[in-house]
């Protein structure tokens, strides 16, 4: 189960708070997976008490800066309602980044995990399609056991891409897969445009020894395909079974 509590002393209007939390959740906690099981109890609460600027106006959903707010009783031009205030944008940036960092801590502490894995899918038809493919890889038990065993088994990654549910954007002859090392060194290309590459097994082993790893998937060569998504996951070890085999008893 995931639980989270976030508190800020910034003054934020309740409606704005709700959209801020919803937006940030979708790009943080809703982008992690350890074992693919969605809990009955997952909850994240965000509290804002405004104590750092008491008596002040608040960061609002209607996206207006304090100076832009109408005087009491005056009506607001509809087009102004569309405008995003700098406060709202900044708060959104701060909260999203903060929640992403909190979410990553959970993956780093996945039960029995020894690796932190970023799965990044690019050049999909749209962001949703990219997310589905990234999830398929990130929840594959066989991909995750291979990562635990430090086995560069990219065939399993391709397999997981291929069965991603509801996806019609998979074009095997345009798909490329690489490992991006955590040390910033050059990517290790495993598959380019559907063609397997001669993999330097020694280098692959070195990359898989690292705690952090990125799997980069490119689904297309077309300019129009701009869908992207990132999902964070971990490997799957013996320890996971040990912990969960008798969790209740």
């Amino acid at each position: 189960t995931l639980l989270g509590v976030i508190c800020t002393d910034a003054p934020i209007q309740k409606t704005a708070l709700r959209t801020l939390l919803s937006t940030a959740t979708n790009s943080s906690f809703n982008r992690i997976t350890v074992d693919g099981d969605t809990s009955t109890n997952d909850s994240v609460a965000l509290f804002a008490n405004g104590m750092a600027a008491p008596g002040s106006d608040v960061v609002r959903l209607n996206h207006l800066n304090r100076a832009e707010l109408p005087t009491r009783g005056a009506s607001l031009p509809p087009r102004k309602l569309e405008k995003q205030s700098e406060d709202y944008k900044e708060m959104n940036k701060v909260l999203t980044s903060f929640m992403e960092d909190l979410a990553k801590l959970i993956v780093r502490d996945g039960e029995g995990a020894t690796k932190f894995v970023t799965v990044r899918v690019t050049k999909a038809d749209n962001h949703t399609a990219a997310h589905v493919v990234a999830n398929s890889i990130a929840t594959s038990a066989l991909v995750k056991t291979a990562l635990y065993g430090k086995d560069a088994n990219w065939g399993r990654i391709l397999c997981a891409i291929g069965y991603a549910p509801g996806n019609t954007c998979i074009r095997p002859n345009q798909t490329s897969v690489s490992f991006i090392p955590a040390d910033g060194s050059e990517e290790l290309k495993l598959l380019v445009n559907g063609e397997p590459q001669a993999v330097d097994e020694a280098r692959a082993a070195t990359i898989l020894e690292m705690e952090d790893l990125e799997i980069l998937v490119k689904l297309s060569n077309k300019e129009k395909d701009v869908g992207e998504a990132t999902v964070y996951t971990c490997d799957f070890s013996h320890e996971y079974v040990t912990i969960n085999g008798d969790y209740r008893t």
Partner: protein
Amino acid sequence: VSLSTQQTRRYSAPTDSAIPPNKAKYVPTEGTYPKGFVVGSAHAQVKASNTKFDDLALIASETPCSAALVTTQNHFQAAPVSVSKKIMFQHQSKSIRGVVINSGCANAVTGKGGREDAMRMAKLTHDLLNKRNPSPHDKSAEVEAKESVKEGTVQIAEDDQDVSAIRTLVMSTGVIGQRLPIDRIEAKIPTLVESLGNTHDHWLRSARAICTTDTFPKLLSRQFTLPSYPGITFSIAGMTKGAGMIHPNMA
């Protein structure tokens, strides 16, 4: 059968709170925490085998505050999830005091009795918080707090979803399908409220109290500014827990 029994490895929760050396770098040694928030923890032995570690946590605002909540979309929502959602809906996300959390038992798939347990936990915490910091927006709850403290009990309304006097959320994590040891929890909630403070140590202990099989407490804090508030530095702090059954899809 014999062979598979021999292959089964049993898990034992760590007998100390030692953080694995490779995870220590993720645990902050200091932090900057938002004004007006206090946090605390206490030990209620929610899980019988936990004889030592805090398993209750409370995060509260000294003054009523705005709140937002996202929860699981699993159709079997745990009792604390449905109770917290009801509280947020009833009070339109306004004048919320905080959240009380227990680890060790998820209070999930526990039916009407589970919802009553979640409400008792939230209500007693709210009453004691209100006694500690009376709220101008919550007079009725303040009166009820005095009464419940005088009587030494907390009454549950006949409607098990009546949350009109509760402005504190509730969360639980742990084993699914078991009832909360609510008497033990209620007995420790006064201690929990007394433990409230705003130091780094308070935040860290509270973050640890919500852990289950986590190997380290997950706590972050940060400072930031907003364009319309020149010269003011705001703070944000957060704690989270989770190690298994993790594939959130919250809304």
